[in-house]
Structure formats: C-alpha cells, structure tokens
C-alpha cells in the first residue's frame, strides 16, 4: 500500500485553528451567503441550473465531436490549436511558442489548469519570466505559496502578511491598508502588462460553434492579458466546451451567482481568434492548448460526472470540512468537495485514496452545485474503489471489525459499554479526543462523544426491566 508522503489528516491537523484557516472559514461562509442571496432573487434560478446541468451532461456524451468542431472553428478564424495528452506536452507546447517568438515575459490571468500542469515552473525553466496578474495569485506567487481557494486564492493570508510581503518583495513602504495594497499591485502590474510579449489565460468556457474562448474575471486582468501582449495562449481542460453561444448564456447565468453571488462577473471576455484586419489592438496570434491529462480516463469511468464542473467554488464554500481545514489540506490544486473527487480521479488512487474520506457526505455540496453534480455519490464510489484496491483505512477496518466482534457477543459488548462509561475521564466537555491503544486510530480523525456513565441497556433493566 502506497502512502502519500503527507496525508489529508496531517495537512489538516497542521492548519486547524490557525489564523489563516479561520480567515478561509469566514470568507467561505460569506461567499456561500452571497450565493444563496443571488439565487433567492433569481426567479429562473432552479430552471437555469437544470438547463446548465443538461448542457454539461449532453456535451460530455459527445465531447469528441464538440472538440473537433471547436478546433475547426478556431482554425477558421486564424487561431492555432494544440493537443496535449498530459502536462508535460502542454508545457512543451507553450514553451515552444514562447521560444519561437523570443518571449521574455509572459503575463498570466488566473487559471487552475495551468497550476495543475505547473506551467509557470516549466516556462521559468525555459527562461521565460512568468507573472501572475490576478491580485490573489500575484500575492501567492510573490510569497512562493499555493492558492487556497478556487475563486479567492489568497484567503489564507491576512492584510498584514501581504503588507510585509509587498514591502519586502516590491520595495514599497509597509502598509496594511487594502486600498493602498491594491494601488501598489495595480501600478506594479500595469507596467508589466504593457511590456509583456505573451499573455496566458485559462478558459472558463469554449464555444464549439464559433471557436470562441470565454474568460470570466472581476479585476480585468483577463482582458489585459488577452489584449496587450502580441501573443495570446489559452490553456483549457478538454471538458470546458459548450456547444453554442446560447448555451454559453445559460452557463453565465449560473457561474457568477454561484461563485460570488454576482449576477454577472465584472468582465465576461469572449475571444474569437486573433486581432483581425482593421482591428486597432489585440494580439496578433491566438493559440489554444487543449489538455487531456487524465480527463479521458475520468470520462471513461464512473467519475465522469465530475467533468461537468464549472469551477465556481460553491461546493468549497458550503463544505463543513473545507471551512475547518482550508484548501491546502487537500494537497493539490483542486480543493474542497470537487477536489476530493477530481484529484484521485485524475491522479489515481494510489497516492490520493484518502481524499474521498475528507467529507462528511452531508450533501451540502450537491445542493450548492449549479450543475447539481452528485458529489457525495461520486465520493462513495471512490471510497468503494479505494477499499477494493486495498486502500481502506486502518481505523475503519480495525474499528468495524472490533465492533462486529463485540456486538455479536453480548457479554463482550456489555463489558465494552461499561468500560466506555468509565472512560469518561479521558476527555473534556463531552468529547474524547484520544482513545488509548488500538482505538487511537479511530480518534485520530474524529473526536468521540463521551459515553453515558450508565449504558442504556442497564438503565432499561433498572427502570423498565423485569
């Protein structure tokens, strides 16, 4: 059995109760509240979610045809399409484009998929200076850190930490005022934007019928990165497709509301090919890199529904585990409930079999998901796979087998309950944090309610028994 070097519980325990994780929890609750309010005032919200779900599921069923149509449409508009089996291929493609055009500096708009394939590291290795431009991602990059939330990557940092970081890295006077920190970032990044040779973006939606890519941002960095540099490279997971422009409209009605409670995010940027003859500005070259990187394997199996995800982050915000543990506990780019499914599905069970257990299966994620993805069902399916591959957790096997042995032998069961009653001394305030001996593997990941001093069967005997 292969163990991850650091597993979910260890990562979560390292962060529990820290200020950073508390900030994540507060922000997640606030974002969840804004989502609820946005749907409460949207009369067509539920019908629109059904439509969005139908579009995503139908598209996945014929994904090959939609991808082919999309690629043809991009080419017809003078764009270049590249196909990448995995992250290494995708990185090599982008590096080759950069080297063919003597690119020194690339500006990046926020993109999960390029974090998935670690494009920045690959490009830096080829001598390209890569600058993240989403404010949160910029801070994360300056700090040499990793994002902690799909929508708000730097939730885990306080303004004081950011102030110190800017002072140290950008040579400005220390300030912890968010408005001043924003102004510092705007000034610094603006001069980078206007000089950069290449702009790299992700893709929120790719429209098959027109060959368009749609990028949704609030800051405007997505527009700048796809307008100022002479080359625009968009990197997309192959599942980002929607068939038509009308379908795109449906997706946009649910994306902003689900992510941040906005009816529409500030900038919905639809790019169709490079600058055309007569256009006053915009990039001269447009490239799309379409990435598989394990997705066809996910599509072929029982986790396929997770590919319908539109990366709004709503499931993170409502998840009681995410709220307490934060994004970093999930150990990879995709965190929260979607990450608990997507990471093991994409990267394999051997290293990630503990993630499907990072959930209480409460179902809040499914309720919040604009696509109504049945995340609890997908998690259960992955747990079953983990168990049949011999990856079941020790606490579960030992705990359940001990319980089974005791419960089928009445004398043993009663002795256990009496022992439990006495064990009340082990914890405080009604909870036991650490059981001794083999029971310890059960309380590693959960506190146990203190048993009653008198077991129920004794109480029954005393009061109602004959």
């Amino acid at each position, binding site marked *: 059995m292969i163990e991850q070097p650091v597993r979910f519980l260890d990562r979560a325990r390292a962060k529990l109760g820290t200020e950073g994780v508390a900030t994540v929890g507060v922000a997640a609750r606030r974002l969840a509240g804004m989502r609820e309010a946005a749907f409460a005032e949207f009369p067509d919200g539920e019908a629109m979610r059904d439509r969005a779900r139908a579009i995503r599921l139908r598209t996945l069923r014929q994904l090959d045809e939609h991808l082919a149509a999309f690629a043809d449409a991009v080419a017809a508009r003078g764009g270049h399409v590249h196909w990448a089996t995995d992250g290494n291929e995708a990185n090599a493609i982008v590096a080759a484009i950069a080297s063919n055009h003597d690119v020194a500096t690339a500006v990046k708009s926020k993109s999960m998929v390029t974090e998935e394939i670690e494009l920045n590291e690959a490009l830096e290795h080829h001598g390209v200076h890569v600058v993240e431009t989403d404010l949160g991602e910029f801070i994360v990059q300056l700090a040499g850190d990793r994002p902690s939330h799909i929508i708000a990557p730097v939730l885990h940092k306080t303004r004081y930490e950011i102030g110190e970081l800017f002072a140290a890295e950008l040579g400005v006077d220390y300030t912890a005022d*968010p408005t001043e920190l924003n102004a510092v970032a705007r000034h610094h990044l603006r001069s980078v934007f206007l000089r950069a040779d290449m702009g790299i973006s992700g893709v929120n939606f790719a429209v098959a019928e027109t060959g368009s890519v749609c990028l949704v941002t609030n800051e405007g960095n997505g527009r700048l990165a796809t307008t100022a540099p002479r080359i625009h490279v968009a990197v997309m997971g192959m599942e980002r497709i929607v068939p038509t422009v009308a379908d795109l409209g449906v997706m946009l009605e649910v994306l902003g509301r689900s992510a941040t409670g906005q009816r529409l995010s500030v900038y919905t940027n639809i790019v169709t090919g490079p600058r055309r003859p007569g256009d006053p500005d915009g990039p001269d070259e447009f490239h799309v890199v379409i990435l598989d990187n394990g997705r066809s394997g996910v599509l072929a199996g029982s986790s396929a529904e997770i590919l319908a995800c539109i990366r709004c982050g709503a499931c993170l915000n409502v998840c009681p585990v995410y709220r307490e543990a934060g994004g970093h506990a999930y150990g990879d780019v995709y965190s929260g409930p979607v990450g608990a499914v997507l990471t093991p599905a994409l990267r394999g069970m051997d290293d990630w079999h503990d993630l499907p257990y990072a959930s209480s299966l409460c179902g809040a994620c499914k309720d919040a998901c604009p696509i109504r993805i049945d995340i609890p069902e997908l998690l259960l399916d992955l747990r079953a796979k983990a168990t049949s591959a011999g990856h079941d957790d020790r606490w579960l096997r030992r705990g359940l087998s001990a319980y089974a042995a005791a419960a089928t032998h009445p004398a043993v069961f009663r002795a256990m309950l009496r022992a439990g009653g006495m064990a009340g001394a082990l914890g405080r305030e009604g909870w036991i944090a650490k059981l001794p001996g083999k029971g310890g593997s059960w309380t590693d990941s959960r506190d146990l309610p203190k048993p009653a001093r008198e077991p129920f069967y004794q109480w029954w005997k005393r009061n109602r028994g004959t």
Partner: protein
Amino acid sequence: MERDAFLDRVRRATATARLPEPPPTLELTQTEYEDPAEEFTRNLTSVDGIAHAPATIEDVVPLVVNIVQDAGATSFLSWDADELPVPGVIEGLQAAGCDRRPAVVPLADAARRTHQVGYDDVAAGVTGAVAGFASSGSIVLDTGPGRPRMASLIPTLHVALLRRSAIGSSVSVWLAAHPAAAAETSNLVFVTGPSRTGDIEMQLNLGVHGPRTIHVVLVPDG
C-alpha cells in the same frame, strides 16, 4: 499529440462514460421589464457603476465633458466618432482641453511596445456600447475598426454611451437572440460595473486592473 489520436481516445471514453440522464428543460419566466432603463440603472448602481439619463441628445456632449473634467482627466482614448451614437463627443472633449491619444497599436513588436507603454497615464476612455442587460446592469462592447478594446480597459475612468433602445433583458436572452455576436468580432465583452477585487481579506476594492469608475450614459432615441 496528433488531433486524431487525441479525439479517438475521447471518443472511446464517451462510449463507456457513466453519466446521469440530463434533466428535462423547464420553461423560464423570461422577465420582460416594463422599464428596462430603470432596471438597468438600479442594477448598475448596485455594482458601483453610475448611470445617467439625459433628457435629449443635445445634453449628451456637455454631460460627457463634465464627467471627464470632474475626474481631472486631461487625456483620453476613444472609439472613432462614427462609432459613437452621438456626434460631437470627441470634438467637445478636445475643445475642453482634453488630449485624444491615438488608439491604433502598431503591429511591429518594438513599435507596439512603445505605443502601449504610452498608455500608462491615459485617464479616460470613451466608448459606445452594442447593448445592455437590464437584469445585471451590464454593457456589451465589441471590437473592430474604430473600436479599440483598450479604451474601456486601460483608463481609470470609462464613459460608455448606450442607446436606451439597445437595453435587453439578460445575458442568456441576448446571446440566444444574437448567436452570431461572438463570431462577428475578435473580442466581445460584457462589462458589469467597475473592476473589482475582494482578494485581500474580502474587502471590496475597485479599479485593481480595469477602470475604477464607470459611467453609462443612456442615450435617448430619436
């Protein structure tokens, strides 16, 4: 990887994919607003944008000049005169001492960079708009000859001129009614209020990359 091999693998995956049945399509209520301009104004205001409703076409030029002067702007980028729904806007700004910057970015690398670096201090951008969405307070901008993207993106102040009659109900209704809108331009963008971020401790900040202030002038028809 080759396209055919890539797509073959996807095709084989779709054959065994375990996907739920798509839900049935329910009818939408399709809100038609009695007064789309009023709804547009309310929603733009709620996202920190500013809407203006001049009574006549003649009021538009002085209004735009006032907005730009109040912001202390002495330079601007704009769409060409014949791309704006009201004549005289550019001349009005120039007469008020505002310098119009050239908006055509050269193709050659070095010239392109020099030109764009010169945008750094442009204070105001003046554009038209193809349409508006009442339900979200958004404006629709496209690019093409005489319609630079940078005019709505680089300056800290953006003034957009939108015909009242071009206000539709929502993004989904508008895109369904205009299926060719995306393909007709290299860049179609929906702008909903000023640039915003909440990345630092979820405190709202405007203008982190795009304009800090957006004024939409609702141009009367006729």
